[in-house]
């Protein structure tokens, strides 16, 4: 009997769970049940789910160590790609629904507004990680370089949070921003604390 975390159905169940928000948004858009301003709901919800997926993927390593479940690492790639897919949908919704897929206009918008630039920079980093997420890419890059590249997820956390903060600063409504900031600070702080402790241990 294989370990429960190694069961294939669990992977598929998680995939279904992660795809659920996107599918229900798509269903809502087609059935026109997203309220008065469906475009706004699509853009904001895909952004929200990007942040949520980011918190999840960053929780894998702490959970793996705390719970003593090394098999949890098997779900890291799926969760990482989920962050990328939601970020991509977020960018697509903005580019299509807000900017009418006018590439020149989008380019100007990115160059002109720090708020958009920061979000776009996070997407570029996620794209680089998504493109190097398969096994052959790891071998081609070498584990050390691959790991260095994929540590840019920490930068994505900072950029994504700043993007969300700027978006909410118009409404002066920082309650949700504070929740994500606390979660991401805990997840990144734990890594920092662990790295420092290891260095002290070695010294």
């Amino acid at each position, binding site marked *: 009997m294989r370990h429960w975390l190694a069961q294939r159905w669990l992977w598929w169940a998680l995939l279904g769970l992660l795809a659920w928000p996107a599918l229900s948004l798509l269903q809502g*858009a087609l059935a026109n049940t997203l309220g*008065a*301003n469906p475009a*706004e709901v699509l853009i904001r919800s895909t952004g929200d789910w990007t942040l949520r997926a980011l918190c999840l993927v960053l929780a894998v390593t702490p959970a793996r160590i705390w719970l003593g479940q090394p098999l949890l690492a098997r779900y890291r790639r799926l969760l990482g790609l989920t962050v990328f897919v939601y970020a991509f949908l977020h960018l697509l919704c903005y580019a299509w629904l*807000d900017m*009418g897929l006018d590439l020149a206009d989008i380019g100007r918008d990115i160059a002109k507004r720090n708020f*958009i630039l920061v979000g776009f920079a996070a997407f570029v980093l996620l794209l680089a990680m998504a493109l190097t997420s398969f096994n052959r890419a790891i071998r081609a890059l070498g584990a050390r370089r691959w790991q260095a590249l994929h540590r840019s997820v920490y930068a994505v956390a900072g950029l994504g949070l700043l993007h969300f903060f700027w*978006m909410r600063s118009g409404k*002066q409504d920082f309650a949700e921003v504070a929740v994500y900031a606390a979660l991401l600070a805990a997840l990144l702080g734990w890594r920092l604390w662990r790295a420092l402790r290891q260095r002290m241990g070695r010294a």
Partner: protein
Amino acid sequence: MLIRTHDNGFIHPNASEITPPAVWQQRRQWLRAVGATGLMASGLAAAATGPGQNRPLPGVPSKVPGAMVMDKLTGYDDVTSYNNFYEFGTDKADPKQRAHTLRTEPWSVVVEGLAGKPGRFGLEDLLRLAPMEERIYRLRCVEGWSMVIPWVGYSLSELLRRVQPQGSAKFVAFDTLADPQQMPGVRGGILDWPYVEGLRMDEAMHPLTMLAFGLYGEVMPKQNGAPLRLVVPWKYGFKSIKSVVRIRLLDKQPVSSWEKAAPQEYGFYSNVNPKVDHPRWSQATERRIGEDGVFTRKRPTLMFNGYEAQVGSLYAGMDLRRNF
């Protein structure tokens, strides 16, 4: 017994046969309502009617130039379920869910400051102050969406004239009610309550600037700023302050709530202007709620929201990029 004689002429009917006043008053009300509806229908095709959730408040189609745009009306459900009214929460679905705690009766508005005849006006007096007009205005939100709403009310100048502004009164400031008991959002620190807005005196006296008491032929729904609000159709929606309790005539330009909160993002004038962007998004285009589909390209935003012919002269010679 058709012909009354001395014997039966003074016999009164049974008390139970007398129509109770409530009933005949209802009948008169009903006749008035029907008459008003007929009047509106005959006046023009406009006369929008709501779903009957609130008391009727009919108005005759306005004769003010620019007050009856021909755009398709935004549906009543969208108009009353997608609102920015931070006193009831920052989510646009919040006001409809939470504004039921607002008590609109009794209500009065204090008009004070540089006025010859300042005073406190009860809602009943304000409702009778001038004839109710229906006006179909475009509403452009600073967030990049727009609606077309049939308001009921009259020009703010009707009220201002009655308080006799002094020559030194150059600006008008408005306050929204700020009661934490009735307004859950006021308990939080999103803005410095009460919500304050302001206009220059010539803007306030412009016939298009409206005190609205209703929409869709009914009294104002609470989430839309009951019992009375300002509507300034050529400015971004947040200038059209809701649930007004105080009006001040001033010699100095007041600081509006959003100007105070984010001066780099929101100016005093906040005229709709497709050429002046918000720092975080373009104002060149807008999405018409309920009409444009999810995948429809956004439509171009018009200078002064399409009211340039009526209000452009107010800003002649002004740098609208600086005075945004």
